[in-house]
């Protein structure tokens, strides 16, 4: 039985943090769920969509995070419960609307669930979205383990209804993408009726129009809600203390760092010397609870990711209650005891506790560590990121790189977030020269294209993926075309939101639940804006490069759609189009004069160098059969034949 439908209260499952969040939302009888995909948050909507038919939930992959939040909000003010999920940078995208939602208030329980990615394990930034809670004045919850991820999600809906405010809940990669045991709670029958009531006077919380004006009274009301939240948080069971009554050291922690702190105290066998105050309600902080625990000790250590959010907010309380709790010695990020970048782990916590309390602990014997390091350096070659075997992006960047080289005017490519971000690395022939937020490649290119009056004469290209096109590239493309910026926009269309697991987008024909939807054709959108649009198959390298070269000689708004499905897409995965072989009679290896173009430059993981034979060879386990390498070998030694399926 799937955890999605199991009505057996008390049943125990091994669940990913994201699954625990899903179950919590189901136990809260969520009605509407919306999101834009982003690692590590994507499984939340994916798995809710599996329950959507049976539990009458409307689930949507929205065009971007701001619209996703607007969709969720509509459900809330129609009296339903809704959840909106996103990764950390999604909160930036949604933040303008969020600012206004804080002022207008909500009706049915509304939860914004964001998954931060400390250490940027699958991000190109280390943004921390907790600060939005303080900046926009909204309650913030952070679960400290897997069970809590479920309980807290359920409670977040109740809290939202009690406060009439959207509630932010923050997860991190090491909870969302980690798994632990979770005991199920009660799953009731689905319920919920939608009606938007607006007959009362503006400002009526239940049945007036939902607006933010006049602003100061609404702002005052928001701050009243936060005061109410503080009173609730003072008694919240999500804030727990474990340890002696008078610890030598008090750790104040939250989120996954709770687990690292527990592990560190256990490793050091310091349970009777160190207490752990785990905070689940991290904004606004409950000052009485904090002061009560500060009074227990003189030494306080903060363990959190990534910036000193908890640390600085606790220090305000410490200053305000200094007369009562006394002077403290603080250890954390501001004094350099803890790092202010990257993710945490048990070892970092062990090291700092060791120093503070003077405990001896050796994690790894020095002799062993040195031997292991020696073997690591000599015998474990670094594994750089690269495009997958058969990835269309490798071929696309090969074409872009070669066309730019042939054009010979120092042209370059601006890009953004997606698998194709790797285009800045050798696997993309170092073709991409800028990479920032979604859609920013074409936005930056639009700016570059207006620098001709300052003597800039380099061809300017921008790339973005098909999902990103809808998410944030369209306004930048409008800007480039309207302002007559001289750029070529290359759409890397691999037919889905590939990086995060093939979620649909407005250009694909299915909704989150597998139902049919009308598609919006990017080519038609571009044409309607006045651009010329051409297509190329990146696997046809000769033709694609010819088209690119010709486009670089033209002026005006030009769009090239490089269309080829992702090698990992469910339709394509495991199906080889070509059987590829290196003809060992023709491949002359280092004596050829090609200087190992195929392996040294093209670098597909499926085409390796056989040291014994000193020649290229296909690794049949890895090769995806795209056949592009056959076009690259100048001697024609790489042979492709239709796989015949």
């Amino acid at each position: 039985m799937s955890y999605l439908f199991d009505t057996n209260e008390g049943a125990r499952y091994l669940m990913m943090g994201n699954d625990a969040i899903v179950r919590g939302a189901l136990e809260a009888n969520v009605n509407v769920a919306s999101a834009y995909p982003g690692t590590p948050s994507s499984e939340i909507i994916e798995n809710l969509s599996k329950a959507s038919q049976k539990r009458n939930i409307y689930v949507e992959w929205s065009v971007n995070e701001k619209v996703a939040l607007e969709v969720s909000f509509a459900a809330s003010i129609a009296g339903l419960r809704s959840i909106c999920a996103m990764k950390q940078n999604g909160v930036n995208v949604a933040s303008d609307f969020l600012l206004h939602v804080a002022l207008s208030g909500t009706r049915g329980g509304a939860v914004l669930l964001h998954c931060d990615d400390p250490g940027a394990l699958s991000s190109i930034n280390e943004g921390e979205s907790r600060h939005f809670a303080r900046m926009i004045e909204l309650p913030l919850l952070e679960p400290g383990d897997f069970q809590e991820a479920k309980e807290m999600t359920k409670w977040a809906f109740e809290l939202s209804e009690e406060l009439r405010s959207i509630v932010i809940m923050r997860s991190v990669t090491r909870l969302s993408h980690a798994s632990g045991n979770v005991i199920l709670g009660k799953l009731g029958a689905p319920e919920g009726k939608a009606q938007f009531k607006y007959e009362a006077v503006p400002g009526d919380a239940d049945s007036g129009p939902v607006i933010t004006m006049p602003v100061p009274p609404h702002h005052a009301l928001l701050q009243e809600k936060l005061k109410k939240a503080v009173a609730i948080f003072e008694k919240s069971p999500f804030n727990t203390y474990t340890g002696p009554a008078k610890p030598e050291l008090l750790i104040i922690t939250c989120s996954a760092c709770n687990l690292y702190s527990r592990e560190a105290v256990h490793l050091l066998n310091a349970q009777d010397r160190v207490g752990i105050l785990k905070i689940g309600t991290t904004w606004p902080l409950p000052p009485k609870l904090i002061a009560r625990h500060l009074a227990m000790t003189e030494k306080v250590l903060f363990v959190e990711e990534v910036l000193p959010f908890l640390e600085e907010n606790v220090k305000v309380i410490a200053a305000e209650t200094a007369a009562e709790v006394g002077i403290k010695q603080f250890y954390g990020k501001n004094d350099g005891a803890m790092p202010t970048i990257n993710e945490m782990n048990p070892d970092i916590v062990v090291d700092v506790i060791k120093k503070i309390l003077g405990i001896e602990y050796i994690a790894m014997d020095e002799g062993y560590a040195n031997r292991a390091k020696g073997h690591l350096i000599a015998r474990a070659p670094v594994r750089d990121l690269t495009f997958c075997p058969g990835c269309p992006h490798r071929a696309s960047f090969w074409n872009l790189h070669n066309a730019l080289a042939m054009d010979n005017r120092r042209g370059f490519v601006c890009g953004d977030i997606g698998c194709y971000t790797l285009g800045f690395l050798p696997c993309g022939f170092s073709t991409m020269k800028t990479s920032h937020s979604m859609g920013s490649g074409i936005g930056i290119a639009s700016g570059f294209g207006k620098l001709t009056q300052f003597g800039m004469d380099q061809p300017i290209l921008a790339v973005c993926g098909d999902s990103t096109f809808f998410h944030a590239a369209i306004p930048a493309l409008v800007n480039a075309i309207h302002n007559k910026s001289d750029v070529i926009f290359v759409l890397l269309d691999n037919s889905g939101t590939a990086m995060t697991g093939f979620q649909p987008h407005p250009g694909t024909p299915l909704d989150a639940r597998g139902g049919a939807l009308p598609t919006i054709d990017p080519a038609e959108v571009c044409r309607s804006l006045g651009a010329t649009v051409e297509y190329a198959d990146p696997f046809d390298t000769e033709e694609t490069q010819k088209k690119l070269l010709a486009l670089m000689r033209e002026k005006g708004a030009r769009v090239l759609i490089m269309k080829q499905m992702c090698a990992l897409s469910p339709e394509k995965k495991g199906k080889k189009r070509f059987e590829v072989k290196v003809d060992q009679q023709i491949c002359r290896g280092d004596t050829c004069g090609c200087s190992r173009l195929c392996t040294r430059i093209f670098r597909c993981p499926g085409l390796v160098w056989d040291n014994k034979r000193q020649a290229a060879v296909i690794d049949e386990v890895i090769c995806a059969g795209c056949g592009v390498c056959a076009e690259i070998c100048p001697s024609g030694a790489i042979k492709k034949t239709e796989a015949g399926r």
Partner: protein
Amino acid sequence: MKAGNLIHDPYNAIITGVGGQGNVMASRILGNILSRKGCFVTIGETFGVSQRGGSVMSHLRISKQSVWSPQIPRGQAHIVVALEPTEAIRVLAAYGNPAVRVLSNTRPIHPVGVIAGELAYPSLDEIRTALGDLASDVALIDATDEAMKLGQAILGNVIMLGAVSGAGVLPFDAEDFRDVISETMSGDKVEINMKAFSKGEEMIRALRQK
């Protein structure tokens, strides 16, 4: 169905490999097996951008007491299961100790730096020597080669799970494996996976008898 006693509590296992080898799937199956037998299981996974040619590592914490951190502390692994042999060396440098056991597939996946000729890939003998220097017990098996004989290279991960079972370090067997995969896989898929699992058990036992 109850799990027997654990050799260590928590028992720390690392399953490592390269994106696309089915590492995450293997760790979830093993985690589910042990969770169903009443253990607390915590799994920490690194996936996302790491699918694109990078190392992928899963940390499993198996305990009769409680949930543990999703990251194993330095030097605290009890077993390293490697779907790619040089990944075992990489893991030992951070999580190894003289008592650790290593179970590794022999099939190399060359990093792009090796393909490009910038880095060297060690011979199997060198790998064996390095692992022997860092672990108390090393078993190298040709999991991918055997999986290809079964018709699917990806089954290398299941063969390795079979080898873990055969090594007798964790309380589970082929029937426990069947119970878990039957929940999500169709009948013919279950059978080919069972074959792969048994192959792994068999290979590790044969190695022990040498």
